[in-house]
């Protein structure tokens, strides 16, 4: 297994068990406030939590915090920006023009101030930013919530390609059809409890 999570717990989350194989997508759904974001943040080690989490058999504690998050990258529903222009948020923006255009983003967007972009553009850029680091596991919190159908299709195509390259994805999505298209298994989060759908 690529990512194994055993008894992961934190305030607001009962001990959770889940696993992801390389190239596998698992969808996470559940009502708002049930703990989906808490689960993803705990796996990324962004908040204090307890439990056994490992990547390719190596325990999370054997990585530094940043090294773990390089490999297991969380993308928030409302991504943050720390510099003025788009390109400043990437290691090498010109190298991403191919992927950007597949998401309907022109290369010129790189010079644009972040403040002038739409919510949907920011969400797609945040996904590109996460993919640029070439993580092994992606934890995506509603990555298409602000997107129209065309842009949504572009994102799904890019995610399918990442899955084909062996990236494992934990996908929080309210869109059942999207979850069915991308994911083989479904997890349900309700009142802080994580369980496999149908189990």
């Amino acid at each position, binding site marked *: 297994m690529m990512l194994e999570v055993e008894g992961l717990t934190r305030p607001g989350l009962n001990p959770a068990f889940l696993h992801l194989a390389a190239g596998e997508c698992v969808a996470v759904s559940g009502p708002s406030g049930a703990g989906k974001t808490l689960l993803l943040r705990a796996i*990324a080690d*962004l908040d204090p939590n307890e439990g056994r989490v490992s990547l390719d058999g190596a325990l999370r504690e054997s990585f*530094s*915090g940043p090294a773990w998050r390089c490999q297991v990258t969380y993308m928030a529903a409302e991504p*943050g920006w*720390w510099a003025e222009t788009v390109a400043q948020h990437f290691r090498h923006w010109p190298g991403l023009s191919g992927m950007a255009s597949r998401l309907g983003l022109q290369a010129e967007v790189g010079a644009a101030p972040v403040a002038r972009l739409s919510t949907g553009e920011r969400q797609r850029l945040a996904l590109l*930013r*996460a993919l640029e*680091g070439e993580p092994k596991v992606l934890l995506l919190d509603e990555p298409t919530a602000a997107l129209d159908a065309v842009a949504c299709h572009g994102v799904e195509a890019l995610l399918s390609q990442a899955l084909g390259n062996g990236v494992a994805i934990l996908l929080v999505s309210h869109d059942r059809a999207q979850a069915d298209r991308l994911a083989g298994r479904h997890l349900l989060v309700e009142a802080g409890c994580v369980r496999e759908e149908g189990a």
Partner: protein
Amino acid sequence: MSYIQLDMIDLALAGLLVLANAGLSLWLQLGLERRMLIAAARMVVQLSLVGMVLKALFLAVSPLWTGLAALAMIAFAGHEILARQDRRFGGWWAYGLGTGSMLLAAGLVTIFALTTQLRPDPWYHPQYAIPLLGMVLGNTMTGISLGLQTLTGAVVDQRVAIEARLALGVAAGEAVLPAMRKALKAAAMPIVNAMGTTGLVSLPGMMTGQILGGVDPAQAVKYQILIMFLISGGTAAGAVTAVTLGARRLFDQRQRLRLDRLG
């Protein structure tokens, strides 16, 4: 040195001005007269006490009593830093961070000046040590409290941006750097501005005091320049210490942002 001594009648005459203020307040119904008189009385009592303490310290020239007086000043200043924070660290950090940074910075700068430039005999002579510490302390206190106030405010404001970088695997030290820069700039501004306008807009109190005391203005100016340099050194050292430790405290061993550590 020659200076004109003041007696009680001189002070009483000047005190009439405060009474006149109180009368004015009554006449114009400002409602300030009570507070004004209490504040004036407090000032007289506090300064007289300080005068007595200083006189006793100067007579004793004791390292122990001088040191205790210095620590008491630092403790009060630490309390003032705490009072100026909107967001405080939890537990001992709230008081310890500002006070510790100030103790380190103001202490080092004062000892530096006493042992290399002023060189009184003995080096801890309270006539030099206490006023010097007081001036360095007052400004270091402002720098540290501005630095910490700006740091915690900036990190709270930039929380989403900082966490976005952490999530991408950026180290905490790098993610918090913009907030630290903002904090250090805020801490340095007052002394930079003060150095730029001193002599044009304002005549510093210490310099004018020395001139009133009969010191040659050229010497008084040299003293003032020394003090300004010491203040800028102390402010920088104190602010860098407090902001660096404060920024560290906002992250844990796993380099997660821990805003829960702000009370």
